[in-house]
Each structure stands twice: as structure tokens, then as C-alpha cells.
């Protein structure tokens, strides 16, 4: 049997793309000390808003911008709740996700009637027919622009050092004259914008339409990838690729006759289980950012 290696690897990159956006967005917040469980809803909102604006304006550029803005606003909501008001981060995050999903479903029902599927123009692949490199533009953005940029910002810029300082020891950062609140707000808003962009990839690049199960747990995968990658950019991106590979493999197995008897749902569940297994192995004894889950108030 000749296994379509090139097709699987190409699919790996495509599947990993929204995860890179989402996981790096989550990483920014967590490095500053805030776990953003609003990610699942933020991906969903990015997907829906991107689709909505594309369907109404016909402009993919405008749609992408709208998804970024929607994501940034979602990040701002998380920042208002957890940074300014000091609300429990788990509750704020789940609440944000529930709100965004309900608001998008409501708007979807109201504007598109829920039932019929409106299809929009979508991004085409660059280098079509080029095998592994035949990818959507956003995939190039994720791997060649975003990941190196986040890596560089965290490692070599003042903003990145301030972010890490605030996440590790907010009292010391505050004493050194760094505004804890402003740093965390920035991390959450920028992180949310990245999540919105990642969500819009699903509608504007892959599907060209919006479905209610379009995100289906990818946000939770991103949160797991950040822990798996121990809050470092390179391992997080590698983790996204690993998940992408397993997801691409299960998609391939599903259409391979020899494996036709395996229930489809079991195959789809496989990558989730792989992530849990990976966490069980690599999640032991990880060191969380120093102020993880903790609101900062001056004594």
C-alpha cells in the first residue's frame, strides 16, 4: 500500500495552523500570569465574525480584520474581569466562552436563520499543486511570521522581559516600575487577537462556511499544548504539529479501506486522547509561571 506521505504532511501543517495561533495567544496570557479559558469561545467568535463579515462585505481582508478585532475585544473582556476586577480566572474564562458561543449562535440564528449554509469566498492555497508547500496564506503567517515573532519578542525585547517578569513575580515587577495591570491587559488583548485570527482560519481558509461544531474543543487543545510546551514557543509549535500529524493520520485512516471498520468517531477522538497521554508524560512536575491564576493587588 502506498501511503500518501505528502498529503498527510500537508494536512498536518493546515490542521496545526489555528492551533499555533490559539496556543501562542494563550501562551502570552499565561506567561503574564493569566490563564485564558475564554479561548474556546474566542476561536468560535473569530470564526463566526470572520464568516459574517466575509458573507456581508465580500472582502476577505475586512473579514480577517474583523475577526482580529473580535478576538482582541474578547481578550479585553478577560482582562477587565481577571486583571482589573480580580475575578477567579477559571470562572471568568468559562463564562467568557459561554457568552461568546451563545452570542454567536444567537447572531447566527438571527442573521442566517441557522439552517441554511451560506458559503463565502475563501482564501486559496498558495503554490497550488506544490505538495507540502501548497498551503493557505495564514499557514505561512503562523509558522514563518508569528512563531518567530513571538519567540523574538519574549526572548529579546523589553516588552517580552516585562511580560515574563510580571508573570513570574508581579510584586518585584511592580517595585521595578513595571505596570502589572497594563502588561497583563496587553498580553490578553494581543493574545485574544491571535485567537480570533486562528478562529477565522477555520471559516475563511478551510471551510468557507460556519458550522456550530467548527471549533469543537480546539481551544482546550491549545491550553493543553501550552502546558505540553512548558510555556516556550518552540515546543508549543512542535506540539501543535504533533497534534496536527495525529489528526491528519486519523483523517487518512478514515478513508483507507483496510481501516474502514474502525468507527469514525473513535478516530476523531484519537488526537484528544494523544494530547492527554502526552500531558500525562510531559506534564509531570512542570513549573507554572510564578503568578499563574493569581490576581495582583498592591498590599
Amino acid at each position, binding site marked *: 500500500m502506498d501511503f500518501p506521505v505528502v498529503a498527510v504532511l500537508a494536512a498536518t501543517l493546515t490542521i496545526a495552523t489555528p492551533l499555533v495561533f490559539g496556543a501562542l495567544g494563550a501562551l502570552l496570557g499565561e506567561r503574564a500570569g493569566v490563564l485564558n479559558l475564554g479561548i474556546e469561545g474566542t476561536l468560535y467568535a473569530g470564526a463566526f465574525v470572520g464568516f459574517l463579515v466575509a458573507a456581508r462585505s465580500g472582502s476577505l481582508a475586512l473579514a480577517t480584520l474583523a475577526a482580529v478585532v473580535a478576538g482582541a475585544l474578547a481578550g479585553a473582556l478577560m482582562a477587565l474581569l481577571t486583571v482589573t476586577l480580580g475575578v477567579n480566572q477559571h470562572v471568568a474564562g*468559562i463564562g467568557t466562552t*459561554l457568552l461568546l458561543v451563545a452570542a454567536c449562535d444567537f447572531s447566527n440564528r438571527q442573521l442566517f436563520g441557522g439552517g441554511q449554509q451560506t458559503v463565502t469566498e475563501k482564501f486559496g492555497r498558495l503554490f497550488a499543486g506544490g505538495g507540502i508547500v501548497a498551503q493557505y496564506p495564514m499557514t505561512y503567517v503562523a509558522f514563518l511570521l508569528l512563531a518567530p515573532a513571538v519567540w523574538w519578542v519574549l526572548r529579546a525585547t523589553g516588552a517580552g522581559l516585562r511580560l515574563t517578569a510580571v508573570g513570574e513575580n508581579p510584586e518585584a515587577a511592580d517595585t521595578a516600575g513595571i505596570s502589572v495591570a497594563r502588561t497583563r491587559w496587553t498580553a490578553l488583548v494581543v493574545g485574544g487577537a491571535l485567537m480570533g485570527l486562528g478562529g477565522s482560519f477555520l471559516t475563511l481558509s478551510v471551510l468557507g462556511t460556519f458550522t456550530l461544531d467548527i471549533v469543537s474543543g480546539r481551544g*482546550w487543545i491549545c491550553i493543553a499544548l501550552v*502546558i505540553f510546551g512548558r510555556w516556550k514557543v518552540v515546543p508549543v509549535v512542535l506540539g501543535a504539529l504533533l497534534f496536527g500529524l495525529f489528526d491528519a493520520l486519523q483523517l487518512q485512516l478514515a478513508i483507507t479501506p483496510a481501516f474502514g471498520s474502525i468507527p469514525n*468517531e473513535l478516530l476523531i477522538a484519537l488526537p*484528544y486522547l494523544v494530547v*492527554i497521554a502526552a*500531558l500525562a508524560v510531559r506534564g509531570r512536575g512542570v513549573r507554572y509561571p510564578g503568578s499563574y491564576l493569581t490576581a495582583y493587588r498592591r498590599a
Partner: protein
Amino acid sequence: MRFVLRSREPRWLPAAAAGLAIVATLALTAGPIRLAGAAPVSAFERYVVTPLTTGNGIAEVLLAATPLLFTGLAVAIAFRVGYYNIGAEGQFLAGAMATTAVALALPDLPTAAALPLALVGGAFGGVAWAFLPAFLRRRAGIDEVVTTLLLNPVAVLLLQGLLNGPWRNPDTGFPDSATFADGYRLPALFGSRVHAGLLVGLVLVAVTAVVLRATPLGVRLRAAGQSPAAAEFSGVKVGLLQWRSALVSGGLAGLGGASQVLGVQHQLTGSLAAGYGYTGVVVATLGGLSAVGVLAVALLLGDVQVGAQGASIALQLPSQMGGVLTSVLLLTVVAALSVRHYRLVRRSPRAVGG
């Protein structure tokens, strides 16, 4: 004027915060409701008041509140000891699947044996689904938030896999299980669709309330959640308490799934994955992680849920507005409660340079 940290909070503050949050919720949702072409005031009336004006409406509210009692209690018990189980959704579905397995395997059992067996089976299904994250937390210190969350989509996929495969309805060919045998029906109450699952839920609320308020265990649970280091120092085994609470939490959610298939659907369907577990987080949080609070909030959200169905028919307002309303209420309540840590003073107590 400036805000300073409060040293002690007056008793009226939580109530005032809740009132403020309700006003904020109404203000924030009025815009979208108007945009959707409905009058906000009549919409709010539909959501909250209308369901309670008829006997049938009240019965539907009780029916809608029943699964939320179970998932709300499940989340409250786990959160209280600092174990963030966000997997009640998956555990609820696992419970329903385990109950269905019992009902389909032993169709001929008489009610007296069938119902207890099916309920216990459901509880075990929930415990089984909660086991892995709890085990990983206890043995390897792996964050339960992520693992419980990740198992939710897996439970949905397992449900769909079973309904598309071995449990596909033999009569209709639809992806629903066969209807359960007569022994597997929770009795109806008040001649309505309300079923005995409500009574099970109320008993659990009462038991939880007594345990949390009036037993040494309740004190230890509270201590473990509020200040784990201090609790550990005074001899409370925090890790063990969290482990047990995690499994009890899963069992409660699983029992909720069992109650739903035995009391309402009498078969397993894909529509069961409707977010009861996630809503449980809302119920537990708004209920202040107390049993009586869970009961009150479950009834309120049940009311809004029934109202949302009514409003979608009467006002053509999509029923998803019910979800918007409850999640906005959650966020405004936690936001308003956080402000209680501060109080407003007229002038700063002493002039500080800069």
C-alpha cells in the same frame, strides 16, 4: 475619591452586588434584544415571569432545572475543595451512556431492580469518566482543568459513535438508541413531564447542605478549598479530599445523565450533549458553591430556559438569547462581587507625593 481595600465586608454587600448585577444584565442584553426586533421589557417578562404563570409552565421549569441540580452540585463540590472539575459535561454524558448500557443489556428487569441498577450504573459511568483526570492530578500533579475539559469532546464523540454504530435504533435506523423497556422509566410527578429525578436531585441537595454545614467533613472541605496550605498544616489531607471530591463530583454528574435518559428521553439521543455540564459551572458559581444556592440558581436558569423557548415562538427571538442572558448574569455577578473587596473613600487618608 479613591478605592481602598476593605478590611471587613458588611452583610448587605453580596445582596447589593447581586442586585447591581441583575440591573447590569438587563441593561447589557436590552440592546441585542431590540436589534433582533423585540421589545426588551416584554422579552424579559417572557423569560422570567411568563413560565411561572401557568401550572404547565412551572412543571416545565422544574423539568429544566432537574439536570442542572445534578451538574451544579457536582461542580460546587469539586470547586469547593479547589479541584476545578470542568468536565461535568463529559461525566453527565458518560452517566447517560452507562445507564443506557444497563437498560439495553437487561431489558426484562422489573422496575424495583431496574431503576436502582440503572441509576447506580449512571453514577459509576460519571465516576469512571472523572477517574483519569483525578488520578493524574493525584499521582502526577497534572492540572485537572485541561484534562477534564479535553474529555468533554471525547465523551460527545463516544456518544455519537455508539449511536451511529452498535446502538443505532433498529426500528427507525436513526442515530438514537432503542426506547428503554417499561421498567426503566422514572415515575412522573404531578401528572406532568416532571419525573422522580427531581426528587433524587432534591435529596442530594439536602444531604450536601447538611454535610457542608453541619459536619466536620464540611469544615475540612471548606478549609481545603479556601486555604490549602493552612488546612494541610492543621492536619487536613487536602490531596485526598480533592481526590474523593473529584470522584463524588463525577458520580453526581453521571447520576444527572442517568436521570435525564430515564426520566425524560427514555432513550439515548445526540441531543443530550446540550451543555448541561458547562451550565453546571454557572449554577455552582452563582449559587456560591452552596447546596441551597445551587437549588435556587438551577430553578432560575430553568425558568429562563423555558422562557427562552417561549420567547422564540412568541417574539421570534432566537432561544439562544437565554444562554446569552445567563452567561452575562454570571459575568456581571462575579464582577460585582469582586468590587466588594473595595470601598470608596472621599479623600486619600494622607497626601502621597505623585
